[in-house]
């Protein structure tokens, strides 16, 4: 039985990744503190959090690039302990390609490095899939940033990972390229690949991820499906469109904060606030063209936790 088959069998009906009480420090700085989470197999799992919160360190530990100081990381039930596996594809945040190599030999080199066999066929398939055939013989240094990023993505998915770790995969991509990459990621997920990605784009996290984990100052502060996270906050948000807009200094009964999005405004209600009273106050002042009560967006939740208004609640 090959190692791949063994791992695949072990992986049946279990989490793709289990992180248990993991701590990683760099000198006096705790990058990740006592982190525990599980990533179900076949899901898209998104890490969100401010810069320097510990997302990349966590993903590097899953990819076995960093070793935890305490705790353990299991991938498909097995502790990796510094070993490399062809089952894991990793796209780092900083793009790293040999600038003087041509695209095809570079991808074949990376693929063979991961799998230990020739991957020429898979490389060709992916070049076609992402529309890069005409660049295959060009040196990397001649490519645009977006094209380089697609090349790097292919390097992460060739030959066939079961776990794909993508650190900021959409940064710097134009909308067309971003859609292409998104489709490719979702297709891999449909094929059973577990995808872990980090993003600063809350829309991407909301739309793509089955599970979202927010890490802040090295600690997990949110973990679950979007709906379960939003449920923690309840229907405390009103989205309105009013003539002349609402100034954040305007006082409305029971409203804690006003977020002006331009054409619409989001109002955050304090506990016990009656939305009908807010509506009456608005109608008394101006013309209201739309009014809806909703759960907070991921963006809003993120800002509540990590924004300047956040108190010591989530501090280390």
């Amino acid at each position: 039985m090959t190692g791949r088959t063994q791992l695949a069998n072990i992986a049946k009906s279990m989490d793709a990744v289990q992180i248990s009480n993991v701590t990683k420090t760099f000198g006096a700085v705790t990058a990740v503190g006592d982190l525990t989470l599980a990533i179900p197999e076949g899901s898209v799992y998104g890490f969100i959090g401010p810069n320097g919160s510990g997302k990349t360190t966590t993903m590097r530990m899953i990819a076995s690039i960093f070793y935890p100081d305490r705790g353990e990381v299991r991938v498909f039930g097995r502790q990796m302990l510094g070993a490399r596996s062809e089952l894991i594809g990793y796209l780092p945040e900083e793009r790293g390609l040999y600038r003087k190599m041509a695209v095809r030999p570079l991808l074949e080199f990376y693929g063979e490095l991961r799998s230990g066999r020739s991957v020429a066929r898979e490389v060709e398939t992916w070049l076609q899939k992402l529309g890069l055939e005409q660049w295959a013989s060009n040196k990397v240094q001649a490519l645009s940033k977006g094209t380089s990023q697609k090349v790097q993505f292919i390097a992460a998915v060739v030959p066939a990972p079961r776990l794909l770790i993508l650190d900021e995969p959409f940064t710097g991509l134009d909308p067309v390229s971003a859609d292409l990459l998104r489709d490719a990621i979702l297709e891999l997920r449909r094929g059973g690949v577990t995808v872990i990605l980090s993003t600063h784009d809350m829309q991407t996290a909301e739309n793509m991820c089955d599970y979202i984990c927010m890490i802040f100052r090295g600690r997990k502060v949110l973990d679950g499906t979007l709906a379960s996270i939003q449920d923690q906050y309840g229907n405390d948000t009103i989205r309105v469109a009013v003539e002349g807009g609402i100034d954040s200094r305007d006082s409305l009964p029971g409203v804690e904060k006003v977020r002006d999005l331009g054409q619409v405004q989001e109002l955050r209600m304090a506990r016990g606030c009656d939305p009908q009273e807010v509506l009456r106050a608005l109608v008394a002042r101006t013309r209201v063209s739309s009014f809806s009560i909703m759960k907070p967006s991921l963006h809003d939740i993120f800002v509540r936790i990590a924004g300047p208004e956040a108190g010591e609640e989530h501090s280390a």
Partner: protein
Amino acid sequence: MHRTLLIAKRDYLATIRTRAFIFGLVVAPLLFGGGFLGVALMESKPDIKDRRIAIIDRTGVSAASVIQAAQERNAKNLFDKTTHRQIHPRYVFETVPPAAEPELQRLALSDLVRQDKLYAFVEIGPAALHPPQAPASGKDPRASEIALYSNASGFGEQRQWLTGAINEGIRRVRLAQLGVDRARFNDILAEITVDNFGLVARDKKTGKIEEAGKKNEVAEFGIPFGLVLLLGMIVMVGSSPMLSAVTEDKAQRLVEMLLGLATPFELMMGKVLGALGVSLTSSAFYIIGGTLALEGMGMAGLVPVALFPWFYAYLIADVLFLCSLAAALGAGCSSPQDAQQLAIVLLSPVLIPYFMLTFVMQQPNGAISTAMSLFPPFTPLLMLLRQALPEGVPAWQPWVGLAGVLVFTLIMVWAAARIFRVAILLQGKSAHLSDLARWAIRG
């Protein structure tokens, strides 16, 4: 192992396919041998302008004899015997009568030298013909001196030339004073060349005594020196780019991508083996080229074939050790500029033995030479030099030296791998040497 070899193959091919590598193959020996080439070129274009020397003879009887000796030397050495081209400057002596105020006279003559009207002046003290055996109290100690005043450097060949001519002139005066017939002067003063031979040995098969061969300067000096120079050059050229290569990979963020595919040890060893492949390729080029050149010159017997296995054993160990060290140091740097500052640390195991070459060649089996050649970082160059010299070394020493080098190399590779693993993803600041030492010990 497959990943290590794959990285080694990529790095090897990426290096040897560049124009810089092919250019370096030719240019590096020119740079290293440039000093010798420069000396040879300068010697082919000697300064042959006449050199006027004033001579103050306070003995009253020596000047004419010194001038005659100088003229004979001029006649003997001025021209190349084959090409008849002038190859040495002519020394032209002029007698200056001693003045009553010696200091003023010396000052006046010094001014003439400064104005380039004289090359130098010589003052023969009044007691120079028969200097006292022990310094006599109360007498002017300079009375028995012969002084050469010039603004030429103290170690040029002119001093040696003038010393020879003046001594010969003085000796002739002494012989004349002893009443020796002038016709016998040349016979008495003729210099005899001492020929340098090896040792006589008995042929083990035939039992015949083999005559000692006349020593060949190329074999005695050129081959050992050239072999060590070649080893040092290949090691330096092969290992120093590793420092900047690792730093550049780190700066270009290539490292994190590679670390997702290979372990730090596989990555480092792949790079080190790639560099070793490049060094072996260069060495093959030079060794084959040098051997063919010697054969072409009819000196095939001088090719030190027996030393080639040692040469390659030392080469492999030295490149592995220095490349691992370079990879560790490079991993600890945050920019190529930082890496450049560490280059001197990296190259010290080659540079220090280079400074010691002359000393070791003069005393190859002295205590210091032996000890230094058994010190692992210096063993490859210094032991090879001692092995290549005619004196040879006790049979156990190269084996002990090689064992030391191999153990040292293994320790260095192990420590470098530990440093590399921690330092390679360090961004934004360069590691101090104390950090490197801590990572090497604690991992």
